[in-house]
């Protein structure tokens, strides 16, 4: 048992009297009462003393009460201001008349007849008056004074500290009162003086203060992990603008101009237009009749005005196709993790903005089979070992596939989509080899991996959640280590 110096001092002060009020002990120890209580609690935890908390009422005059102090209650002052009788009119001129007359009547000291106030001859000093003389006693009449707002009642907390037999035993064995040293000074260290000091010993049983580390957001760690997986797999990172023309967001991806996704219900449109890039006619021809491919195109008339309209990008694929347009020669392996926008009302599982991950591989001789290979590899590195492939549909890929991963407790969970860019997408840009592409909503992965029920937590985070979420996550580490 390692007592602090203060506890020892407390025991020494307490032992001769066995029990004392904290205030009295404070005087004896030349310290503050609160400090004594603090030492006593420490000693009480060790079973050396007992601390009894006593709550006592304390009475004192209010501001109004102070005004009457020494002079008596207003009715007594008024009563003594006249002889046996007085005209009401005259009495009312007295400054205390307003309060005093009522009380005099109530106490039966006076009678009022025909505008004349007359003493009844019986005006004993009541308990309230006695209490008013010395309210601190809390005597019988003090309640009435509290009701009248003349006296205030406060709670006074005091502590009675008593030594226990264990405390006494320790005291009688003698206590070492050398001054304890907490933090070592530079001087004490370099001179070696610390060796002669009585160093305070600290208890490991007292929990440490909680300090909160500066941290990367838990969701960012997931995004970073995905980014790292893709960099490890040899992909180049893309980054680009949130605002895109419909041309890059839709038309360049062979999304027909009357597709429901291009209506204002689903997409955030902007009051901005971007001019068509040079060579846009190749995209127009593809839409109208399939250009120079085996495609029929969508038919109808393709509108430049529709293509010029700007939107908040609905996917990161607009950045992918721009990258391919700049790099039409193989090989190209690129990825993008970025925010995308859909016109959705906010609820726990829908947000108008969220992160999307997307990867593409373009090379000579790559095939659907290779796409499945990349999907399997990527998801395995993300910690999803079991994967299956089902037919899918996406407007700009053919063939398309929906990967599903096995999640214990949930079964097969659809996670993203993939396919080979349609020739209608690639041909206008002079891309001559298949482009394998896949994408997924990262928030879906966040829900699965972080056990999140409400997506809003990612963007309007409770900082307590971030403080409590450990930086290191063994499962995550395992999968990235295997990748590295």
């Amino acid at each position, binding site marked *: 048992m390692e007592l602090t110096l203060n506890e020892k001092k407390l025991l020494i002060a307490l032992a001769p009297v066995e029990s004392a009020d904290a205030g009295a002990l404070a005087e004896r120890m030349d310290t503050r009462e609160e400090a004594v209580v603090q030492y006593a609690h420490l000693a009480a935890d060790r079973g050396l003393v007992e601390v009894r908390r006593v709550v006592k009422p304390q009475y004192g005059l209010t501001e109004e009460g102070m005004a009457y102090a020494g002079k008596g209650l207003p009715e007594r002052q008024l009563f003594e201001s006249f002889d046996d009788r007085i005209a009401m009119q005259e009495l009312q001129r007295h400054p205390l008349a307003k309060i005093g007359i009522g009380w005099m009547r109530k106490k039966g000291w006076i009678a009022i007849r025909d505008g004349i106030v007359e003493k009844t001859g019986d005006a004993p000093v009541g308990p309230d008056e006695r209490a008013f003389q010395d309210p601190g006693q809390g005597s019988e009449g003090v309640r009435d004074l509290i009701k009248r707002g003349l006296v205030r009642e406060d709670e006074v907390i005091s502590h009675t500290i008593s030594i226990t037999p264990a405390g006494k035993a320790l005291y009688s064995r003698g206590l070492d009162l050398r001054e304890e040293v907490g933090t070592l000074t530079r001087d004490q260290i370099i001179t070696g003086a610390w060796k002669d000091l009585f160093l305070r010993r600290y208890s490991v049983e007292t929990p440490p203060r909680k300090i909160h580390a*500066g941290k990367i957001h838990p969701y960012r760690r997931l995004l970073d992990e995905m980014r790292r997986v893709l960099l490890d797999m040899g992909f180049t990172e893309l980054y680009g603008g949130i605002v895109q023309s419909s041309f890059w967001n839709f038309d360049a991806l062979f999304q027909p101009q009357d597709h429901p996704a291009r209506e204002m219900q689903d997409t955030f449109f902007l009051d*901005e237009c971007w001019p068509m890039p040079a060579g846009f006619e190749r995209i127009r021809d593809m839409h109208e009749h399939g250009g120079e491919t085996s495609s029929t195109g969508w038919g109808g008339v393709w509108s430049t005005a529709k293509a010029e309209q700007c939107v908040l990008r609905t996917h990161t694929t607009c950045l992918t196709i721009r990258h391919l347009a700049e790099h039409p020669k193989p090989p190209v392996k690129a990825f993008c993790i970025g925010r995308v926008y859909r016109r959705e009302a906010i609820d726990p599982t829908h947000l108008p903005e969220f992160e999307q991950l997307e990867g593409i591989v373009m090379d000579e001789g790559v095939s659907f089979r290779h796409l499945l290979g990349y999907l399997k590899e990527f998801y395995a590195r993300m910690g999803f070992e079991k994967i299956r492939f089902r037919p899918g549909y996406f407007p700009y890929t053919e063939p398309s596939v929906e990967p599903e991963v096995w999640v214990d407790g949930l079964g097969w969970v659809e996670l993203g989509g993939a396919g080979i860019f349609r020739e*209608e997408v690639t041909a206008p840009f002079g891309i001559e080899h298949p482009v394998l592409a896949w994408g997924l909503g990262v928030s879906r992965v966040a829900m699965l991996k972080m056990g999140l029920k409400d997506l809003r937590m990612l963007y309007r985070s409770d900082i307590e959640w971030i403080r409590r979420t450990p930086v290191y996550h063994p499962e995550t580490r395992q999968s990235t280590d295997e990748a590295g």
Partner: protein
Amino acid sequence: MPIITLPYTYLERLVGADRAAILDRLPMFGSDIERIEDDHADVEFFPVRPDLFSVEGVARAMRGFLGIETGLPVYEVRQSGIGFSVDPALASIRPFLGSAVIRNVSLDGAGIESLMGLQEALHWAVGRGRGKVAIGVHDLDTVTPPFRYLASPRERSFVPLDYSEEMTMEEILEQHPKGRDYAHLVRDFPRFPLIVDADDRVLSFPPIINGELTRVTGETRNILLDTTGTDQKAVQIAVNILCTALAEAGAEIESVTIDGQDVPSLAPMERYVSVQECSDLLGVELTPDAIADLLQRMRFGAEPAGSELVRVLVPCYRADIMHDWDVFEDVAIAFGYDRIGADLPRTFTIGAGHPVSHITAAVRSIFVGLGYLEMIPFTLTNERVLFERMQRPPSPSALRVLYPISEEQTVVRTDILPLLLEALQANKHRELPQRLFAAGDVVLGTGTYQKAAAVSIHPGADFSEAYACADALCRELGLTYRAAGSDDPAFLDGRRGACVVDERPVGVFGEVHPDVLLAFDLEHPVAALELDLRAVPGYPGQPDTPSPGAR
């Protein structure tokens, strides 16, 4: 996506297999099973396969996929001798018409439900809410051919479906529930589309409502189909899907003569596809025979045409086959996605991060070192948060969305600091001190770039803390700046400063103005800063807009 209800008894009868076998294979055919009930299953198909929006269509496909009946379904079309004329005045209103006569239908419970469901799903998927295509189904025996599709005066009246009184077409748009739903499709035209018979009796006011006269009931034996629209291909495919579905249910299809032309033909489209291209795309070596066999399972007509090509007959109801690769996807589905295998190619590339990511990663590492927690706030916000509460003048270059979904999200953020103050507000009840930062995209005009911002709230937060933190951030980013005075109204006068690089202010720091604090419901001082990351050395320049086919 439309949900298709598959009643087991009807489905089993049409497929010729039991429900377990069908339901087991549906997912690998490309369907999501939504619900399995005692007497039916609800399933979902992709919007590009409207031919699967009926029990009959699903049964046709599954007979092939299960190997019960493969190859091209052949539909005989006899001539009905019934004629239709189209008013040239419709050219600018709703020019295209498709039609057919369907005889000997037996519209018992399951059949009529399937037909109605199909019609609705087609309106959605092919018709784009009836604008592109609208379908009318009539009891042929209640009217007299020939029929006329005309542009009628808007005052013409008839008894619309579900009503007993005559109404003018204008009244229908105002009063009839369907009229109100679809009025926007025709309202602006001087004349309205109308279909009448030889006796000038009204069959339909497309795309709004049919007449009560030709109501289809359980007793109906012979159907006249009208599909009208603005896209000839879509009109045609809707007719083909409806006719072949009804033919699958046992009806007989007859053609109608529209301005001298016999429709529909229900004949397949022919394509020759390359065996090598298919094998290369899928990554599976396939012979012409194998491809033909797989395609027949997907109900194509298919036969090898020499060693390099396969002749493919695409059923008339397949709206989605635009390109040879669409055919190859069906080869893959029939082959089985689970049998294709998964391999990595030998493409050699070296991974490379984007410079913007390198900068934001550095910013994050600096702030974490300074004891800050990262936030990832929304980029959509509103002018109250961005400007009003910040006491800053609204920026004319802030990007506003045209049709916001709520008042909370009307603009894309131009700064991150206001969103961090919002985060402090949301975390008001949490232990102090709180030090938060965020680095990410902002938009000005239509240009996207990045900023980093940080806030520190606690009773001792002051100008010195903000200045020290801004200074540390700049130093660690290798950004040489000159500190200057600032007049940013979001900060307290005399306790604010700017980071200036090349005579341009790129950052601001200081003590947040008490009125701003109160606007965010905060009660302690906040030291804050924000930095434009374009100032950081190595920030990439704006890329040029690429051009299609420029090389």
